[in-house]
C-alpha cells in the first residue's frame, strides 16, 4: 500500500464512499483490475472502514430532553397583567405627585408668612379695618410667641381656624362680641372701646392678657396627626393597592397553573 501515492489512497477512499464521478470511477476500476497492490490497498481501507462502522454504540446515560427551567421558559403572562402593572405604576406616580405638591405648597406658604397667621387670633379682628402700628403689633406678637419657624410651618394651616373661636377673633371683620366684652370688662383709663374704629396694639397688649395657649398646646399638637391624606390621595392609594394586588394574584395563578401543567406532562 505504501507503494501507492496519497492521491491513489484518496481516490480509493472516495471510491469506497461512492464519491467519485462516473469517469473517475471507471478509470479507477480499470486500474484495480490490473494492479493487485492497489486492489489490496482497497481491501485494507475497506476493512478499516468496516471496523469503524461497527464501532459499538453506547447507550445514552440519560435522556437529554430539555426542561422549561433549562431553556428559561416562563409561564404565559395573563393579558391583563401588563395593563395592570402600568396602571399601578401610573397611579403610584400620581400619588407621589400629590404628596410632592403638598410638600412644595406647604414649604412655599410657610416660608412667606408664618407668624401673622399664628398671631391673628391674639389680637382679635385683624381684618376688621385699618390697623395702626400693625408692624409693631406683629413684632410684639412675635416676641411673645417666639415660635420656631419650623413649628410655625407645621401648624400654619389649622391655627387660625382652631384658635379663632376661642378668642373671638373675627378674622373676617365681623362683630367680635366676646373681644369687646373682654375689653369692656377691663376698664383702663385711656383705653379705647371696640366702638372705636381701630384699637391700638398698645391697648390690646396691655389690657388683654395674651392667652398662654396662643401657640397650639403640646397635647393638642400631639393628638394631631403629622399629616393627613386628602380624599384624592386615599383614592389613589387604594387604587394602586387594588391594581397591584390584582396583577400579583393573576401572575401567581398563572404560575401555579403552569407548574401544574408541567407536573402533569412529566
Amino acid at each position, binding site marked *: 500500500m505504501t507503494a501507492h501515492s496519497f492521491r491513489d489512497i484518496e481516490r480509493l477512499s472516495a471510491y469506497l*464512499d461512492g464519491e467519485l464521478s462516473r469517469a473517475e470511477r471507471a478509470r479507477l476500476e480499470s486500474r484495480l483490475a490490473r494492479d493487485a497492490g492497489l486492489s489490496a490497498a482497497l481491501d485494507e481501507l475497506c*476493512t*478499516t472502514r468496516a471496523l*469503524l462502522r461497527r*464501532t*459499538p454504540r453506547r*447507550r*445514552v446515560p440519560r435522556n437529554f430532553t*430539555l426542561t422549561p427551567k433549562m*431553556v428559561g421558559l416562563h409561564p404565559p403572562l395573563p393579558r391583563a397583567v401588563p395593563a395592570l402593572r402600568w396602571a399601578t405604576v401610573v397611579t403610584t406616580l400620581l400619588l407621589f405627585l400629590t404628596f410632592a405638591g403638598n410638600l412644595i405648597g406647604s414649604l412655599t406658604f410657610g416660608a412667606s408668612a408664618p407668624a401673622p397667621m399664628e398671631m391673628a387670633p391674639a389680637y382679635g379682628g385683624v381684618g376688621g379695618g385699618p390697623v395702626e402700628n400693625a408692624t409693631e403689633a406683629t413684632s410684639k406678637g412675635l416676641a411673645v410667641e417666639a415660635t420656631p419657624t419650623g413649628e410655625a410651618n407645621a401648624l400654619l394651616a389649622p391655627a387660625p381656624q382652631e384658635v379663632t373661636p376661642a378668642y373671638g377673633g373675627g378674622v373676617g371683620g365681623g362683630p367680635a362680641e366676646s373681644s369687646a366684652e373682654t375689653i369692656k370688662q377691663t376698664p383702663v383709663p385711656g383705653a379705647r372701646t371696640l366702638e372705636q374704629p381701630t384699637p391700638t396694639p398698645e391697648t390690646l397688649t396691655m389690657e388683654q392678657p395674651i392667652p398662654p395657649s396662643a401657640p397650639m398646646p403640646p397635647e393638642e399638637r400631639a393628638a394631631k396627626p403629622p399629616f393627613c391624606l386628602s380624599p384624592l390621595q386615599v383614592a389613589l392609594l387604594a387604587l394602586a393597592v387594588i391594581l397591584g394586588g390584582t396583577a400579583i394574584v393573576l401572575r401567581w395563578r398563572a404560575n401555579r397553573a403552569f407548574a401544574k401543567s408541567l407536573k402533569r406532562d412529566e
Partner: protein
Amino acid sequence: MDEPALIRSAQRGDLEAFNRLVLAYQEALFSTALRILNDADLAADATQEAFLSAFRGLNGYRGGSFRAWLLRTVTNACYDELRRRRRRPTFPLVPLDGDDEEVETPRWLADPHLSPEDQLEQAELEHAIQHCLDGLPTDFRTVVVLADIQGLDYAEVAAVLRKPIGTIKSRLARARLRLRECLQAFRELLPSAFRLEEERGL
C-alpha cells in the same frame, strides 16, 4: 415522526416538539461527542449543551439535514470542551472496580442484552478504535467520526464542519490510512468477524 412539523413547532417555542427531536437524535449526538472527547461525562455535558444551544438557535436552521445541523452543534460543543481542556488540563477520575483497580473502559453503559463474551468482544473493539481515534488530530478524528461512525456523506460532513468537500475527502483518506496502521497493532485482539473483506463489493 413528522420531522419538519416538529421542527416548525419547536421553532415557535414548542418545547415538547423539540424534546421529541431530542429523543430521536440524542444517541447520535452523544455517540459523536463520546468518540471525539473519549469521556462519557464530558460527552454527556457536550450533548446537553448542544441540545440547549440548538433549541435557542433553532430559528437559524434553514432547512437541509436536521441531523447534520444538530451534529454541527455537538461538534462545536466538543471543540469548546477540547479548547477548555487544553487551557485547564485535568486528570479524569477513572472508575474503580471492586478491588479498587482502575477500569480502563467504563462498562456501565454497555448493552446489558449482550452475552458476556459479546460484551467483552465489543469492549475490546471499542477500546482499540477509541485508542486509535485518540491518536488522530482533532480535525481528522471529527471527520472520521462523522463519516464512518455516524454515516454522513461528504456533503453533510462538509456542511457540519463548514469545510470544502475536497478538504473532507483528503482528511478522511489520511485519517483512514493512519487508523489502518494503528488498528494493525490490535489485529490479534479483533474478532475475525470484523475482518470484512466482503464489503469490498460495495
